[in-house]
């Protein structure tokens, strides 16, 4: 009964999404207020029925109703309650439900916060969002219905992949989906503006907070995923250039570029067609990610069960949406050509242009490496795989110029900057950076650092120091009693840039100075690495609520004093018998020590992996700082109060002409 209600609610949500898209788009095209008025309530109804359907699935998971195939496959009374609730999105069908729920939430947020926008524009945005949800509802209902019954019911349930049984399962996917799906809002704003043929500073200001919000979620999602793989996969390392990691990283790079180019569109009215293209590309890449994960065309640890029918459906969805959006772009964008003001070579505009070029080049490099194996195979040229060395060698050099720009760009004036003014801003940080660089060179020579370590730290320090300029300067001015406000958007930008510096330091130090060794040891033996002595004390059987396994004890000494006692584990889950390697990690700001248990080698010996990861925590910390910066910028007042002003653009009758009243805010 509950399952049937779930399907029924899903179908109702689809119908509401269809009417949302039809009345939203057709109403705006024919300027019928009554039609347009349907879009908003349809969006609310869509979320209501989607949430109802989602709750039904969750309920079925919690009570482990084995007459529903999806539940029988992935729910199990042995799993703790917590994971039965989160387990809903642990496999393909349920994760599509989560995707739809998240899309419904974004749609409703747009519906609520777009009430002050011109009604034609907001109903077009809702219409486009409705088209996207309709596509995914159809996909879920036709190829991945989670409520399909199974007769006779299964006798006992299966389990989730044991790797997924982790607290981060509860937050990582929803965060990532909030980010992925959130890019659909920027996409819809862009498409709506292209349909209406009007793209101006106001449009950029409306799009910016949505893009920023999606970017914040995407950042957090990626960081959590990276942290998860670090401690759960059991072999150490926090980024593998796995196709699915890349699939989340590419939209992130494009969204980062988009945030910056939106700034230009908002302040200067330039880059508009480029910004629109970025918005389309960002969402297309997140659709591409969905396709890659769910079609089985690439090998990845994240891949869901393979089903070519699903792959084909998503591909059609991806194709229809992107090709339509691009054709619309082709039709409209030439009209937007070069309507912004011109700018000098030394200007904020050109710095952001370089930023965009570099970010997109980086995204292109990642894209090429991810798709290349598929490309080669389709062309019948054999089988290859592209590994981390490619990405390290191609992606990282592209990022270095970006780190130089990031330190200067914020201090260059719009339209035309002057060298002396920039120099006045950056001279002190430059001086400190110069001292720091000298110190680092000395340390590098002393400690015999590889050149990469030196380069990375020098650039990282540069980013850190220049990010401090603006907040410090404004605080100093304020201290002197001069009028200087530290607006959330400036503070947010500085914090986000600071976060970039922290990430650069973390990545550099942990990858270039980290050490790892695999050693065969038996209880009683010790191993020494990077100033720490690891003693293998004992190994014992262990068990948990739904697993059995072994648990080893290592005592770690630093010099003569005891440092920590750790317990790496190996777990075999029943009933299906997947195994996980639960590494033991002693974390700190300066370094992580990582011990993980490999396979038994016979005669009481075990293969043990030791890792020494200096400053690895900075990678995630920096990412979180970036997200915090984005969040602060989101709190800027200008995104909230602008439209409390006059009722915008009355549909009929006189009123401001479309172009007036837009550029005045910049």
């Amino acid at each position, binding site marked *: 009964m509950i399952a049937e209600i779930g399907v029924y609610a899903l179908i109702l949500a689809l119908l509401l999404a269809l009417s949302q898209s039809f009345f939203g788009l057709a109403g705006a095209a024919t300027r019928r207020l009554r039609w347009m008025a349907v879009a908003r309530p349809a969006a609310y109804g869509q979320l209501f029925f989607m949430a109802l359907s989602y709750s039904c699935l969750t309920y079925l998971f919690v009570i482990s109703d084995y007459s529903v195939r999806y539940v029988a496959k992935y729910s199990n009374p042995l799993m703790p309650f917590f994971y039965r609730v989160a387990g809903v999105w642990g496999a393909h069908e349920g994760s599509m439900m989560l995707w739809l729920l998240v899309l419904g939430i974004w749609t409703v947020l747009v519906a609520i916060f777009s009430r002050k926008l011109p009604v034609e524009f907001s109903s077009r945005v809702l219409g486009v969002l409705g088209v996207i949800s309709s596509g995914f509802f159809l996909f879920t209902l036709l190829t991945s219905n989670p409520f399909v019954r199974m007769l006779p019911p299964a006798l006992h349930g299966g389990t989730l992949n044991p790797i997924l049984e982790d607290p981060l399962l509860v937050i990582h996917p929803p965060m990532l989906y909030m980010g992925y799906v959130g890019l659909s809002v920027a996409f819809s704003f862009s498409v709506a503006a292209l349909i209406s043929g009007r793209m101006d500073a106001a449009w950029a200001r409306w799009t910016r907070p949505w893009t920023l919000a999606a970017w914040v979620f995407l950042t957090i999602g990626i960081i959590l995923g990276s942290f998860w793989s670090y401690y759960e996969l059991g072999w150490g390392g926090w980024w593998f250039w796995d196709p699915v990691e890349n699939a989340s990283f590419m939209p992130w790079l494009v969204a980062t570029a988009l945030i910056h180019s939106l700034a230009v569109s908002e302040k200067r009215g330039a880059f508009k067609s480029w910004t629109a293209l970025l918005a389309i590309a960002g969402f297309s890449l997140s659709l591409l990610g969905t396709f890659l994960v769910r079609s*089985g065309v690439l090998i990845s640890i994240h891949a869901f069960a393979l089903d*070519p029918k699903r792959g084909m459906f998503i591909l059609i969805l991806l194709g229809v949406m*992107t*090709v339509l959006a691009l054709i619309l772009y082709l039709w409209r964008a030439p009209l937007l*050509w070069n309507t912004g003001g011109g700018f000098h070579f030394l200007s904020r505009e050109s710095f952001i242009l370089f930023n965009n070029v570099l970010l997109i080049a980086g995204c292109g490099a990642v894209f090429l490496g991810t798709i290349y194996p598929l490309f080669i195979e389709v062309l019948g040229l054999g089988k290859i795989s592209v590994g981390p060395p490619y990405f390290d060698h191609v992606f990282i050099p592209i990022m270095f110029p970006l780190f130089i720009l990031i330190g200067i760009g914020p201090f260059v004036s719009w339209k035309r900057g002057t060298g002396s003014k920039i120099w006045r801003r950056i001279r002190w940080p430059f001086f400190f950076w110069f001292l720091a660089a000298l110190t680092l060179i000395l340390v590098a020579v002393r400690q015999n650092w590889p050149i990469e370590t030196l380069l990375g730290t020098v650039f990282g320090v540069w980013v850190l120091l220049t990010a401090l300029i603006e907040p410090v300067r404004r605080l100093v001015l304020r201290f002197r009693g001069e009028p200087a406000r530290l607006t959330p958007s400036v503070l947010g930008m500085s914090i986000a840039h600071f976060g970039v510096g922290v990430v650069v330091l973390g990545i550099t130090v942990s990858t270039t100075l980290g050490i790892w060794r695999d050693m065969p040891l038996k209880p009683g033996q010790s191993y020494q690495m990077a100033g720490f002595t690891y003693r293998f004390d004992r190994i014992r059987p262990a068990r948990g609520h739904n697993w059995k396994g072994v648990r080893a004890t290592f005592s770690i000494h630093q010099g003569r004093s005891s440092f920590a006692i750790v317990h790496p584990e190996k777990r075999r889950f029943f009933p299906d018998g997947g195994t996980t390697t639960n590494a033991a990690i002693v974390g700190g700001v300066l370094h992580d020590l990582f011990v993980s248990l490999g396979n038994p080698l016979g005669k009481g010996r075990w293969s043990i992996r030791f890792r020494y990861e200096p400053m690895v925590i900075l990678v995630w910390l920096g990412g979180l700082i970036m997200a915090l910066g984005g969040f602060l910028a989101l709190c800027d007042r200008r995104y909230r109060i602008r439209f409390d002003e006059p009722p915008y653009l009355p549909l009929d009758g006189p009123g401001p002409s479309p172009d007036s009243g837009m550029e005045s805010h910049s």
Partner: protein
Amino acid sequence: MKRGLRYVIFVVPVLLMVGFLGILWAGLGHNPSIVPSPLIGKSAPTLILPRLRHPAQMVNRSYFLGHVTLLNVWASWCISCRYEHPTLLWLKRKGVRILGVDYKDKRTAALDYLRKNGNPYQEVVFDRRGLTTINWGVYGTPETFVVGPHAIIRYKYVGPISLRVARRVIYPLVRRLDSDGPST
């Protein structure tokens, strides 16, 4: 810039996208996890292993000479092997000569398994730690090779053989190789 040229620039993203979608479309039918074995067409790697029943006696590469042989890597703990067991028994009834390699297993458990489920193998050898079969590129069970009468590897299948695959691919291949090779 001329108006016509502008349109040409904006056509580029559409064309790129369409081409890219075409490639994804073509990629849908492929399964990336099937990796062609580099051993196909090559001479079989070393194989010296004790017999499962009589550990003192060894079986070596000369076992392949003169006959078409199916080399099947299995284990008593392997669930997928149970799926393919009936297929192996069917192949045996069809007169196919099968060499079983018992992989990372316990001798008694393996013997027990064969007693309970029937023995499709003409000969079973024992690779307790999987160190010999690693030369064959085997890192899991079940995997199956078709080895020609000159000890040349002709075919490799990863995963349980379904009856369909046995009927359509493996058995016809064995027959063909049999008629090519010298009869002894």
